[in-house]
């Protein structure tokens, strides 16, 4: 996080943090690539914010080492790391104007007045705050404060930008707008972004990779589609979005995948069964299942009865109960849902073999 204008590459090696008897972060090893947009995702208390604070230098890890561009920075104080940071609630200097806020990191670095002026001007233009230069933070809207915070954190060209739930205070439409803006800033600056959120859709929409945390442990890191389509465990699968879980029995390897018994019918999976044998959980996203009048013997399908529907506009969420009593939710076109409900009797739930994946039975 030293050379200005150059994206940093960060390595966390066995980082752990305890607060008294509370284990906030446990043996975290993670490489953050140069210029990547990494999201730390997890529920509150999962350790994601603690890790961000360790990256910023505000929290000292209990064990493990942290490297930036190969240099050990574990003991380097925050003010010397100089990572750009955007806080929850923005943490703008209330007594300084927009201009002064953005100029602060440059003044600290003793840049010349001319350079400060030109870079602050450029940054104000870039985040669309022209005309607001002399205002105080209290005179700005939430979205504008957010832009000041981003501009202040990026103006000194830090190697890494750390963002702690920056959009949590914004309403939904503004959120979408700010997300797009942040993605653009990431592309323009090429800086490494580390972004903390508990909103999985935000994580999937923005990141080049997502790291999912729970109970102080890093559970999985991967590209958004990897973690969404192939979650490593049940927690990740459920946290990233709604998902149906069906018990499968007698799982064994088969031609290009695995096979097993679900509700007494043979089902095929495209994933490998080496790690999982015997009883397991078959997980399928609601949008990957469809409703059919019947299913042929070589097609994945189980019988179910539609019990309720929720109209969502573009589609309908349909709740069904299988013969053995498992609850399943599917997202289907509106007219399909209406037909399934009006029939009042049995329909078939089908899904392509590559869309179902196996998770170990019971465990997280």
């Amino acid at each position, binding site marked *: 996080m030293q050379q200005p204008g150059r994206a940093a590459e960060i390595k966390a090696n066995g980082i752990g943090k305890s607060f008294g008897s509370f284990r906030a972060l446990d043996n975290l090893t993670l490489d953050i690539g140069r210029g990547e947009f990494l999201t730390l995702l997890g529920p509150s208390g999962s350790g994601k914010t603690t890790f961000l604070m360790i990256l910023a*230098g505000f929290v000292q890890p209990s064990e493990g080492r942290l490297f930036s561009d190969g240099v050990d920075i574990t003991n380097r104080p925050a*003010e010397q790391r100089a990572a750009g940071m955007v*806080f929850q609630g923005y943490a703008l*200097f209330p007594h300084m104007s927009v201009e002064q806020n953005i100029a*602060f990191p440059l003044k*600290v670095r003793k840049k010349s007045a001319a350079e400060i002026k030109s870079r602050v001007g450029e940054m104000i233009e870039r985040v669309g705050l022209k005309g607001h230069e002399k205002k105080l933070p209290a005179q700005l809207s939430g979205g504008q404060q957010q832009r000041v915070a981003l501009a202040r954190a990026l103006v000194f060209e830090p190697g890494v930008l750390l963002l702690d739930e920056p959009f949590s205070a914004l309403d939904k439409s503004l959120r979408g707008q700010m997300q797009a803006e942040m993605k653009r800033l990431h592309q323009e600056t090429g800086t490494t972004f580390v972004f903390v959120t508990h909103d999985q859709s935000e994580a999937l929409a923005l990141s080049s990779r997502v790291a999912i945390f729970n109970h102080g442990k890093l559970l999985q890191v991967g590209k958004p589609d990897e973690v969404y389509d192939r979650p490593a465990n049940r927690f990740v699968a459920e946290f990233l979005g709604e998902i149906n879980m069906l018990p499968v029995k007698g799982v064994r390897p088969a031609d290009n995948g695995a096979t097993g018994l679900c509700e007494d019918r043979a089902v095929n999976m495209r994933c490998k069964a080496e790690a999982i044998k015997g009883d397991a959980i078959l997980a399928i996203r609601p949008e990957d299942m469809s409703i059919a009048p019947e299913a042929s013997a070589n097609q994945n399908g189980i019988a179910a009865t539609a019990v309720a529907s929720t109209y969502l506009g573009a589609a309908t969420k349909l709740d069904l109960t299988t013969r053995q009593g498992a609850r399943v939710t599917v997202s289907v076109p509106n007219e399909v849902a209406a037909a399934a409900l009006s029939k009042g009797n049995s329909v078939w739930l089908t899904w392509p073999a590559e869309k179902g994946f196996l998770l170990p039975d019971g465990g997280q």
Partner: protein
Amino acid sequence: MRGTLSDRTGAALLMAPLLLFLILAYAWPFLGVVKWSFTLPTPGLGQYHALLTDELVQSVFIRTLRIAAIVTVVSVTAAYAITVVWVRGSPVQRVLAEFCILVPFWISVLTRAFGWVALLSNRGLVNTWLQSIGFISEPLTLVRNEFGVIVGMSHFLIPFAVFPLASAMRSLDERVLLAARGLGSSRMRTFWTVFVPMTRSGIIGSALITFVFSLGFFVTPAILGGGRSVMIAELIYLRIFQSPDWGLGAAISVVLVVFVGALMALLFRYVKPKQLV
């Protein structure tokens, strides 16, 4: 928070005895003082005219303002340092600071004034110690002058200066300080460019309270000033009790009350009453 009407009526009833007391014990007698200032010894504005021309009165006014200003700077500065430790120090430091802030409240102002005399007089602790280590040969005049008054008054007023500052420091968003550090600012720089400006309302409140209190000091300057550093309250006392000049004493009182009232109005424009405790 806005209470319901009955809530507010209830609060007004609870406040009523205090208000009544203030009217009977302060406002009413003060109206008498105002009357004196216009009627004694003869009706008219004569005493106020004398106030503007009397050199002694003017020099006391100027001395009072000067001492109050110096005491304010000394007290607020010292209180700021103490409050930083009290609000942001380690648990041990906090307890220690709290002790130092509260103990003076338990000791009477007279006791404290005489304590300073004992410390600062020609054969007091400070002078004997400085002489014994050979730092000075002749005792320094530390008391019965303006210096002694300033020391004694500041000592009395520091705890009062602490509370508005503590309130401002407690309400400060910790993340803003983290942000400053994260942006590369050293602790010193963060303190001067972020922490101090953000506690501005506390500094104003603390300074105005100290200044207003200083203007009306009587016992401390009377003892530590030794008659050589008379302040306005002592002058009023002398006019009323030692020279039969009630009219002038009353006029000085009225000017002082009006001046303090204006300062209080200014104070409440900058800080809310709840920030002062």
